[in-house]
């Protein structure tokens, strides 16, 4: 039978603890209170959850297959689109992997610009999470506050790359182009105002009795479970495990920045919320240090076999024309081998495993998606909770369905 919300209910015939019958309820894939196109088949005893089976794949776009048909430099555009809330971090994982295979090191200015873009992305991803989770838990105004700041980040994306969301800014060999002076004006203004805005979010939620009663003690994931289930990011740190790839396996010069890893021992939805708020504050701290230490110099490797020559050289040098022609017809080849690079995204470990057979297209590109692994912990967290709590649990797990299905 189907009720007015489009939720279908099936009787299982099994007896529940309260004398009633277990019911199987289908959530999604378009249920208004679920994230994206996540579908859950839930067995309920009264309102208590007895089993959850996530059904995924509704947003599968064959990104890994498409990557095999694209040349190395074209693939960046596709990486933007799997975890669509953090495109530059996806670009970074792919770019670092290609650079490791080619044995290329990007110049210091590009490293710092990459860190700036990564941290801005982490902030914008957490802002979307905070706004939508707020709505799901009844704090309707959160989305307005969060999207106000997210919009300034998107303005910065537009200024630096021309695109608001799918920037493709970080590329193998460096970045698209140097940042403009206006970008730094926007960034400095943002760094100055953001801590105050984070205080505003905390005023609205941290001591809010409704928010606290809906998240404290809900969706407990112990440290041992989180590790065994392979959870990463705020899901792991919210369970009290101090693990952050930026600290433990640094990349792009993160070891040179002074920041703290956000860890919470609460282990519940509220702990994960506190972790992300702390992470936002730390991201602003990293941004400030990055702007202060931004060195001068080129933003791309000086390698004509990998990146096209500057426009002015094309008018005077035959060799530059040949390089340009070769790069845009055949592309470059990457030495045979395989490599795995992991970076810390807003959701956890965002990895890229690349196999090259020595040609101008990848043999295999695999994205290790944090959401895909984190979603497997859902059943452990939601067991024996009420249906309404499941919404809080899905919310604080922060899964992006594009990342789950790729």
């Amino acid at each position, binding site marked *: 039978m189907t009720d007015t919300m489009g939720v279908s209910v099936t009787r299982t015939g099994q007896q529940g603890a309260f004398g009633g019958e277990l019911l199987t309820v289908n959530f999604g894939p378009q249920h208004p209170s679920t994230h994206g196109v996540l579908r859950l088949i839930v067995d309920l005893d009264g309102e208590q959850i007895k089993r959850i089976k996530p059904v*995924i*794949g509704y947003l*599968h776009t*064959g990104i*890994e*297959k*498409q990557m*095999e*048909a694209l040349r190395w430099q074209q693939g960046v555009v596709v990486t933007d689109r799997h975890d669509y809330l953090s495109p530059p971090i996806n670009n970074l994982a792919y770019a670092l992997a290609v650079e*490791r*295979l080619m*044995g290329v090191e990007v110049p210091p200015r590009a490293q710092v610009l990459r860190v700036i873009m990564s941290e801005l992305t982490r902030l914008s991803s957490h802002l979307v999470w905070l706004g939508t989770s707020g709505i799901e838990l009844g704090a309707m105004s959160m989305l307005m506050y969060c999207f106000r700041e997210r919009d300034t980040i998107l303005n910065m994306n537009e200024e630096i790359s021309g695109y608001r969301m799918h920037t493709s800014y970080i590329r193998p060999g460096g970045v698209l182009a140097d940042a403009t002076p206006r970008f730094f004006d926007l960034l400095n203004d943002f760094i100055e105002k953001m801590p105050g805005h984070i205080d505003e979010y905390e005023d609205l939620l941290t001591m809010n009795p409704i928010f606290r009663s809906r998240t404290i003690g809900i969706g407990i994931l112990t440290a041992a479970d989180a*590790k*065994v*289930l*392979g959870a990463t990011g705020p899901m792991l740190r919210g369970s009290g495990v101090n*693990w952050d790839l930026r600290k*433990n*396996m640094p990349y792009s010069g993160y070891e040179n920045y002074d920041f703290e890893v956000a860890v919470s021992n609460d282990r519940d939805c509220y702990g994960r919320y506190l972790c992300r708020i702390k992470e936002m504050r730390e991201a602003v701290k990293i941004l400030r240090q990055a702007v202060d230490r931004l060195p001068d110099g080129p933003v791309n490797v000086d390698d004509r076999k990998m990146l096209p020559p500057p426009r002015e050289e094309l008018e005077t040098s035959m060799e530059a024309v040949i390089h340009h022609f070769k790069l845009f017809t055949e592309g470059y080849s990457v030495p*045979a*081998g*395989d*490599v*795995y690079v*992991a970076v810390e995204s807003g959701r956890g*470990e965002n*990895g890229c*495993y690349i*196999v*090259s*057979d*020595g040609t101008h297209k990848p*043999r*295999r590109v*695999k994205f*290790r998606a944090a959401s*895909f*692994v984190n979603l*497997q912990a859902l059943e452990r967290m939601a067991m024996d909770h009420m249906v309404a709590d499941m919404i809080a649990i899905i919310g604080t797990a922060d899964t992006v369905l594009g990342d789950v*299905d*790729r």
Partner: protein
Amino acid sequence: MIADDLVIEKGTSAGDDWLTVPADRVREALSSLRAEGYTILTFLTCVDHLADASRAWPERYELVYQLRDIEAPRDLRVRAFVGGETPHIDSVHDLFPPANWDERETYDMFGIVFEGHPDLSRILMPDDWVGHPLRRDYPVGGEHVEFSEEHETWQTAPDRA
């Protein structure tokens, strides 16, 4: 320590350590590595080496297990090669719980059968899908575009490719 007879080959690729183990003893190898401290399976996937001339490959399909020891921290990649029309390998979902969905995905995309998996069904593609899309002989654009007037020209199912 992993027994010497379990290691067929070992090396380093672009800074990543890896070793190859026999496909029929993959559970034995992974459980001894787990006891050594590699307690986390970062991901599990497959690579199809059909017509790959970069080196001589023992079999067509290479299964890749990326392990991590978060205490050290260190990473290790374990490879195992399988072949045949429906390749088989033992499931490791009980040693490493995240392998459950990864194995379903690998089955879905490459048609590798994981013996002992509790629910080896398609995870990303629809349940009634024919073929395994990430195999190298499965063409890009091989899917049927519904409600398309050019349906016939788009339809390049594997047997007609």
